[in-house]
C-alpha cells in the first residue's frame, strides 16, 4: 500500500486492513516512525518513544483485536510497565512504571501498538503543554503556537501523523481543548466509565482518560475498547458499548439542543469562535433539530469551583512526591523536613507549586468551610442544573475554548487569564458528564476551532452521533477541516 493511501486510513480502517493483511502492523508503525523522524525535532510531541519495543510488538501482533496494528500514543501520565512515566515533571524524570494502567492494557489487548509517551503540562496542570519540564510542544500547523494542553503532545502527535490516535487525560478540559486547537476529535467520557487505575492522579474526582482521534468513528471505537468497570478503581462504573451503526445512522431531526448562553456569549470568547459555533447551531437547526439558548447561572462560577476543588485534590495527590521512596530527591538534606522542602521546591515547576499552594489554602481549617465546602456545594448545585437541563434537552452545546490556539508564552504571562480560558470545558468535568470536542471551523489565520457537545451521564452514544452528523455533513458544506483531511478522518 502506498504511504499516502496508508495515511489516509482512519484507525478503524487501518485495523481492518491489518486484519485483511492488506498492510502489516509493522508497515503502519514504520510510517509513523518515519513521520516522527521528519517532524519530531520541531514538534516535540513525545517525551519518550519506544521504537524497538513497538516493532517487536507489531511483529508479534495477534490479529483479532478491534484496533489491530494501530500505532497509538499515550499521554505520559499513563502507566506502561517498564517505560518511563514522567508526567512532564522533573519529579518523575527517571520514574519507570512498574505496572500498566488498565486502559492502556485494554488498548494493547485490542491490538494497539504503543508508540510512545506524549508531552504534557506538568501533572496535567496547564492549558498549553508549556509547563512540561521537558519543554513545550509546538502546534503542528504553526510552530510558534501552542497545541493546547495539558494533552498537547497527544494532540500534536495525532494531528501530525506521529500516531494514528492518542489517549489523553482530561481533568478540566485537557483532552477537549487540545483536540479543538489541533482540529481533532477529543472525547471526555462519563466520569468513571474508564478506569483510572494507572492514571497518575491530578484531581481524582474529575480525572479520566479518553481518545484524541482524527474521526468520530475512531473516537467511538477507542471508547468501546477502553471503557468498563475495573475492580482496581472503585469509582469506576459499568457502561455499555456505543453502537457504531447507530452513530452512523444518527439524525438530529427532532432532537432538542440547548446552547449554553453563559459560555457562548461570554466576553472572554473570541468573535471568530462564537461565529463558528453559531454556524453549527444553524446547521443543526437546518437539519431538523430544535436549537435553543439555555441559561445556567452557575456557569459563571464554574472556573472558580473547578480551581478550588481540583487544586485541593491535587495538593493531596501530589504529597507523595517527597523524595523519600522514588523520583527526584534533592541533595544535601539533613532531616526529613529539609528533604521535603528542597525536593518539592526543586522538583516541581511553578504552575504545580501554585496549585499546591492554592489547594492547601482552600483546605486549611481557616478556609475549608468558605472555600472547599462552598465549592463542593456549588458543584452539587451545578450537577442538579445539568440534570435539570437534560430533562429538557438531548444535547448541550458550547464552544470548547474561548480562543484558538494562542502563541507560545501567553499562558505563562497571565496565569489567571489562562485559568479563565477553561470556562467552557470545566462544567462537564464538574458534572461528570460526557463531552466531545469536534472541529467546526477555523480562524482567518487558519487555526482550527472546535465545538463542544455534552449529554447526560452515559450519553456517549448521543454526543458521538451528533458529532458524526457534523463531521459527515457539515464538513462537506464548509471545508472546515482544511486541506488533506477527509470527512472520515484520514490525514
Amino acid at each position: 500500500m502506498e504511504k499516502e493511501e496508508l495515511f489516509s486510513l482512519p484507525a478503524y480502517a487501518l485495523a481492518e486492513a491489518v486484519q485483511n493483511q492488506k498492510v502489516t502492523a509493522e508497515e503502519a508503525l514504520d510510517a509513523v516512525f518515519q513521520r516522527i523522524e521528519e517532524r519530531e525535532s520541531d514538534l516535540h510531541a513525545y517525551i519518550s518513544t519506544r521504537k524497538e519495543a513497538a516493532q517487536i510488538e507489531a511483529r508479534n501482533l495477534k490479529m483479532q483485536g478491534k484496533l489491530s496494528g494501530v500505532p497509538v500514543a499515550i499521554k505520559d501520565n499513563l502507566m506502561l510497565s517498564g517505560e518511563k512515566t514522567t508526567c512532564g515533571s522533573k519529579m518523575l524524570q527517571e520514574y519507570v512504571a512498574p505496572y500498566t494502567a488498565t486502559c492502556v492494557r485494554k488498548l494493547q489487548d485490542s491490538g494497539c501498538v504503543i508508540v510512545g509517551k506524549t508531552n504534557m503540562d506538568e501533572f496535567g496542570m496547564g492549558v498549553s503543554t508549556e509547563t512540561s519540564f521537558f519543554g513545550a510542544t509546538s502546534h503542528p500547523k504553526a510552530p510558534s503556537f501552542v497545541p493546547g494542553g495539558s494533552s498537547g503532545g497527544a494532540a500534536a502527535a495525532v494531528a501530525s501523523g506521529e500516531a494514528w490516535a492518542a489517549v489523553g487525560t482530561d481533568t478540566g478540559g485537557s483532552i477537549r481543548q487540545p483536540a479543538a486547537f489541533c482540529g481533532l476529535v477529543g472525547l471526555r467520557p462519563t466520569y468513571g466509565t474508564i478506569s483510572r487505575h494507572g492514571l497518575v492522579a491530578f484531581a481524582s474526582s474529575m480525572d479520566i482518560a479518553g481518545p484524541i482521534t482524527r474521526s468520530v468513528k475512531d473516537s467511538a471505537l477507542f471508547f468501546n475498547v477502553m471503557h468498563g468497570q475495573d475492580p482496581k478503581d472503585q469509582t469506576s462504573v459499568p457502561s455499555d458499548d456505543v453502537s457504531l451503526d447507530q452513530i452512523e445512522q444518527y439524525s438530529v431531526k427532532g432532537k432538542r439542543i440547548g446552547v449554553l448562553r453563559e459560555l457562548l456569549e461570554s466576553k472572554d470568547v473570541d468573535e471568530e469562535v462564537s461565529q463558528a459555533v453559531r454556524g453549527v447551531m444553524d446547521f443543526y437547526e437546518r437539519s431538523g433539530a430544535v436549537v435553543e439558548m439555555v441559561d445556567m447561572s452557575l456557569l459563571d462560577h464554574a472556573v472558580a469551583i473547578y480551581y478550588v476543588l481540583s487544586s485541593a485534590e491535587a495538593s493531596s495527590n501530589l504529597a507523595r512526591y517527597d523524595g523519600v521512596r522514588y523520583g527526584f530527591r534533592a541533595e544535601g538534606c539533613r532531616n526529613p523536613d529539609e528533604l521535603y522542602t528542597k525536593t518539592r521546591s526543586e522538583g516541581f515547576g511553578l504552575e504545580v507549586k501554585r496549585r499546591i499552594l492554592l489547594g492547601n489554602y482552600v483546605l486549611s481549617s481557616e478556609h475549608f468551610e468558605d472555600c472547599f465546602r462552598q465549592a463542593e456545594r456549588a458543584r452539587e448545585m451545578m450537577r442538579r442544573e445539568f440534570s435539570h437541563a437534560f430533562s429538557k434537552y438531548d444535547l448541550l452545546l458550547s464552544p470548547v475554548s474561548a480562543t484558538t490556539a494562542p502563541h507560545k508564552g501567553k499562558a505563562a504571562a497571565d496565569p489567571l487569564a489562562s485559568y479563565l480560558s477553561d470556562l467552557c470545558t470545566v462544567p462537564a468535568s464538574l458534572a461528570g458528564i460526557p463531552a466531545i470536542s469536534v472541529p467546526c471551523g477555523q480562524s482567518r489565520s487558519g487555526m482550527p476551532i472546535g465545538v463542544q457537545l455534552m449529554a447526560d451521564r452515559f450519553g456517549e452514544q448521543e454526543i458521538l452521533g451528533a458529532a458524526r452528523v457534523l463531521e459527515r455533513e457539515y464538513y462537506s458544506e464548509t471545508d472546515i477541516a482544511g486541506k488533506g483531511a477527509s470527512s472520515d478522518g484520514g490525514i
Partner: protein
Amino acid sequence: MEEFETIVGLEVHVELKTESKIFCSCPTTFGAAPNTHICEVCAGLPGALPRLNKKVPEYAVMTGLALHAEITKQMRFDRKNYFYPDLPKGYQISQLYAPCARNGYLEIDDPEKKIRIHELHMEDDAGKLIHDDTGTYIDFSRCGVPLIEIVTEPDFRSAEEVVSFLQKLKTMLQFLGVSDCKMQEGSMRVDVNLSVRKIGQETLGTRTEMKNLSSFRAVSKAVAYEARRQWEALGRGEKILRETRRWDEKNEISVSMRKKEDAAEYKYFPEPDLPVLCFSEEEIRAIKETLPELPEEKRRRYIEELHLPAYDAGILTSQRQVADLFEKTMEICHDPKEASNWIMGEFMKIRNDHGDDEEDFTMREESLGEIILLQKAGRISRASAKALLLAAYEENALPKEYAEAHDLWLITDKAVLLPVVEQVIKDNPKSVSEYRAGKVKNKQFLLGQAMRATKGKADPSILEGVLQECLESE
C-alpha cells in the same frame, strides 16, 4: 494538698485481624521481613488507587454494635494530610465527617460505670521507622494494615477505671475475633488525654495527650504520674500546656514531644478515590446476628444457666481463650462446676507458673475435659490428673496416650489387689487385731499401707472394698 480530680479520655487504635490489608490484597502478617508485604497501592506509587477490603467495615460495624453504638448508614472516608517518612501517600485514609459509628458505651465493673464511646472509625496504618547505629530505615510492610480508632468521652476519673476499661475492651474485641489486641506488638495502641481539676469545679482543665504506652501497667503508671505532674504544676502556679507527651517507660515519667500550636494542620477532605459506603438496616441486622456471644452475655449465662458462682463466671469470661477452654471442657465433661474448678485452680496455676499471658498458651482445648472424664470414671487419680494437665499444657500430650505411656491407670482388678491387701494384713498383725477388737480407725492406716504398696495406683474405693472383705473374712 487540695483534693483534685483526674479527667481522662482515651483514643484506642486497634489493628484488625483481617488476612489482607484495608486497601489492597497484601497480607497483614506481623513480623515479616521489612518491605516484603507491599504493592503499588500500600506503597503509594503513582496511579495506584485504594480498593476497600470488605472485611474491614464488617469488623468495624461488629465492634460498633458490640459497643452499643449507632452505625452510620452512609460512611465516608476522608484524607488526613501530613508529611512523615513512614506515610507513603502523604495522607492517611481515615474517617472524620461520617465515621463508622457514634455514641456507644462500654460498661466496666470495677468500679461499676458506663464509659461513653464518642466514635469509632476506620483508617489505614502507616509504616514503621527503624533506627539503628547505621541510620534510620523505613519498613512499609505495616502500611495499609487496617485500624479502627475508638474514641471515648472524658469519662474516666482514675487509672483503675482506665485499666478496667481497656481490659474489658480487649476481651470484647478478642471475643469478637476482630483483633489480637497485643499491646507489645502494637496491635492495640492507647493514647491518653488527661486533665485535672479541683473537686467541684465544672469546667475542664487543659489536657495533654500521652503516647507510647506499651502495656496496661504503663497506662496505669502514666495516668497516675501525669495527673500528679499536672496538679503539682498548677500548685506552683504554672499553666498546663496543650501538648503531646511521650511516656518514658524506663524512667516512668512523661516527656513533652510537641506543642499543639505547632502540630500539623491535617487539611481533612473527603477521599475522592472511594465511594460512599452504605449500610442498610438489613445489612446491619445481619451483622448483628453474626455477633458471637460477648463476655457480658456469657457471664450472665454461666450464672443463670450453669449456676456458677458470679466470681467463677467473671473469671471464666475475662479472657477469650479461657472462656473457649471452659466451653470446650464443659462440652466434654458436662460438669460446669468441675470444669470451672479445674480451670480456676490447676489450669491458672500452671499458666501462672509458666509466666504465660492468655495469648501464649496453645494447649489443645479438648484435653482438660478428657482428663476430668478419666478422673470421674475412676481411671486415674487426682494426682495423675494434675500430672496429665501439666503434660498437656507443656507438651500438648494427649491424656490417654500419656496415661498409657506413663502407666497412670488406676488398678481396679480385685485379683491384682487381693495379694497386696493380704500382704498388708500379714505385715501388720497388731493393727489388724486392734481393728477387729473395735478400733475401726485402724482401717485408714491399713488402707494407706495398701495404697502405698500399689504406689498410689489402686482405685481407692475398690481397694477399700477388698480390704474390708479381707478384714471381715477372718
